[in-house]
């Protein structure tokens, strides 16, 4: 069914595959810039990923290399980096990392481009006007948030303990570089966790109110790749084909949800991240089957369609049509269980050790105030979210 009206944009240039990092020099020069600020985190610096990228950037002298971005990006960090960018007269950004680094870089571009000193004052959805563009190349090291292809930045407002959302097409990076050298250092557990995050993006993008034919195409392609490659990537981090496939899946899932939004899983996951500091991918993995079960009565047909892409034609054809939706949920649970066995990825909130039962009410109240809930296909009240959390708590 074609929606009465929809919008879709993906202007990110994607460079995927062998020696992609070596093309950073070309992409910077083609945009008439030569003094990038390189952003990353301390872990990637320590394990040598930053060095690998810098070595690939032939004849490019960074203006500044900042590797202190925390796992939860914040307004304070963004403004600190902005000051350094100006101080060192940088003219572009190369961000190497997962969602936090990439979103921080988006925040920096926004802070510089709008000249805003108070980022919370410009929060919103589609309200930012175009600014003088800062060329921005994203090098994702997880697969993942898909942030290298999304028009969304989530930055922590540490003063108020919430995750602030910015939605604007101007936040899209110029280039996303997918190179296995940046990906293969991902430990098994992170590969599993971020892989399930990508699956969640794709499933929610395909089933939420803003879905459209373009985002659907990206979502199903992502699910197909995840179904074929996630386990392989988790089992063998040196499997380059699997790593690259998961990077592509993550980017496609990001493109999908950037243009069709996500729903209840993310609304609750953001709240768990803000209040309990639960890792995003872990929250997605735990919540996905429970929210799917909650949404099943309105999403049965669309879940059924997705079974084809996750499990393949043989399984799809063998399951009666009216059972396919439930089978998709079983498949997701089964994938979670396998990942739990091999990588100890938690399957319940209690297992994470980060969520107290006493926090669930506060999480539920925060979740209904997350923008993602508006496009969840089914209404979600505080009581509904609380019920989902209780089931997902699992102790």
């Amino acid at each position, binding site marked *: 069914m074609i*929606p*009465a009206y*929809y919008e879709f944009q993906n202007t990110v240039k994607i460079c995927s595959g062998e020696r992609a990092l070596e093309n950073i020099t070309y992409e910077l020069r083609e945009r008439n810039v030569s003094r990038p600020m390189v952003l990353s985190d301390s872990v990637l610096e320590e394990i040598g990923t930053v060095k690998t990228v810098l070595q690939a950037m032939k004849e490019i002298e960074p203006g500044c290399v900042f590797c202190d971005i925390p796992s939860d990006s914040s307004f304070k960090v963004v403004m600190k980096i902005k000051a350094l960018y100006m101080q060192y007269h940088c003219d572009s950004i190369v961000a190497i990392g997962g969602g936090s680094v990439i979103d921080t870089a988006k925040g920096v571009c926004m802070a510089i481009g709008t000249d805003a000193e108070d980022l919370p004052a410009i*929060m919103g959805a589609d309200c930012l006007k175009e600014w003088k563009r800062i060329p921005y190349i994203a090098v994702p090291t997880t697969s993942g948030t898909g942030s290298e292809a999304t028009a969304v930045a989530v930055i922590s407002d540490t003063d108020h303990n919430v995750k602030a959302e910015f939605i604007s097409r101007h936040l899209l990076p110029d280039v996303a570089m997918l190179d296995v050298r940046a990906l293969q250092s991902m430990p098994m557990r992170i590969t599993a966790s971020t892989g399930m995050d990508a699956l969640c993006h794709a499933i929610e993008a395909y089933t939420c*109110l803003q879905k459209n034919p373009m985002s659907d195409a990206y979502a199903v392609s992502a699910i197909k790749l995840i179904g074929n490659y996630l386990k392989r990537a988790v089992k063998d981090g040196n499997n380059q084909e699997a790593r690259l496939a998961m990077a592509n899946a993550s980017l496609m899932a990001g493109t999908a949800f950037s243009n069709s939004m996500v729903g209840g899983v993310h609304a609750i996951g953001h709240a768990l991240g803000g209040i309990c500091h639960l890792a995003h991918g872990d929250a997605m993995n735990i919540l996905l089957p429970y929210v799917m079960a909650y949404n099943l009565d309105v999403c049965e047909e669309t879940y059924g369609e997705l079974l084809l892409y996750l499990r393949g034609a043989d399984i799809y054809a063998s399951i009666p049509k009216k059972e396919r939706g439930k089978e998709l949920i079983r498949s997701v649970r089964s994938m979670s269980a396998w990942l739990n066995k091999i990588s100890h990825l938690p399957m319940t909130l209690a297992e994470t050790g980060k969520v107290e039962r006493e926090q669930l009410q506060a999480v539920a109240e925060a979740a209904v*105030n997350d923008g993602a809930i*508006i496009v969840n296909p089914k209404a979600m009240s505080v009581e509904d979210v609380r019920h989902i959390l209780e089931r997902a708590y699992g102790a």
Partner: protein
Amino acid sequence: MKGRICQIVLWFLCRGMDVLAQGDDRVRDEIHRLPEGYTIRLKAGMGKKDPQIGMILMDGRVQQVNLDDGADLTIVFKNVHIAFKVFTGQIGISEAYARRGFYMKGNINKAMGVVRCMEYVELYLFPKFMSGRILKRVEKKQMPALMVYKKAVFDRRVEV
């Protein structure tokens, strides 16, 4: 014509929220969760003369106020046609958002409370066959819809 109808509905929206802030405890709770003095600007289109309304939350009441800019929350429909669809109960706010029919400036977390209040107003202002179509869940009313209309039109308004 669409513009005039939107302006009337915007007025009812503001008055309806004020009436329900006193008569429906769900709306009252939402209003109380927002900061005192919180300002909201709704505009049905991008043109300077397009219909708009400003509201301020004070002492648990929703009061109409002149706001040109600088509201805590600004919701601007991209054109009067999509606003008309929402204000005449053809589509809900969720669907309007799904169609990227408006942009929103302000804290999205707080905006969700305002969106819920607007949906409660729609619940009362529109007959069930319309609210069933545009709302994901049709909640029970806590007062008769006719009373909301009567109070919106005839009750004393607090002017700011």
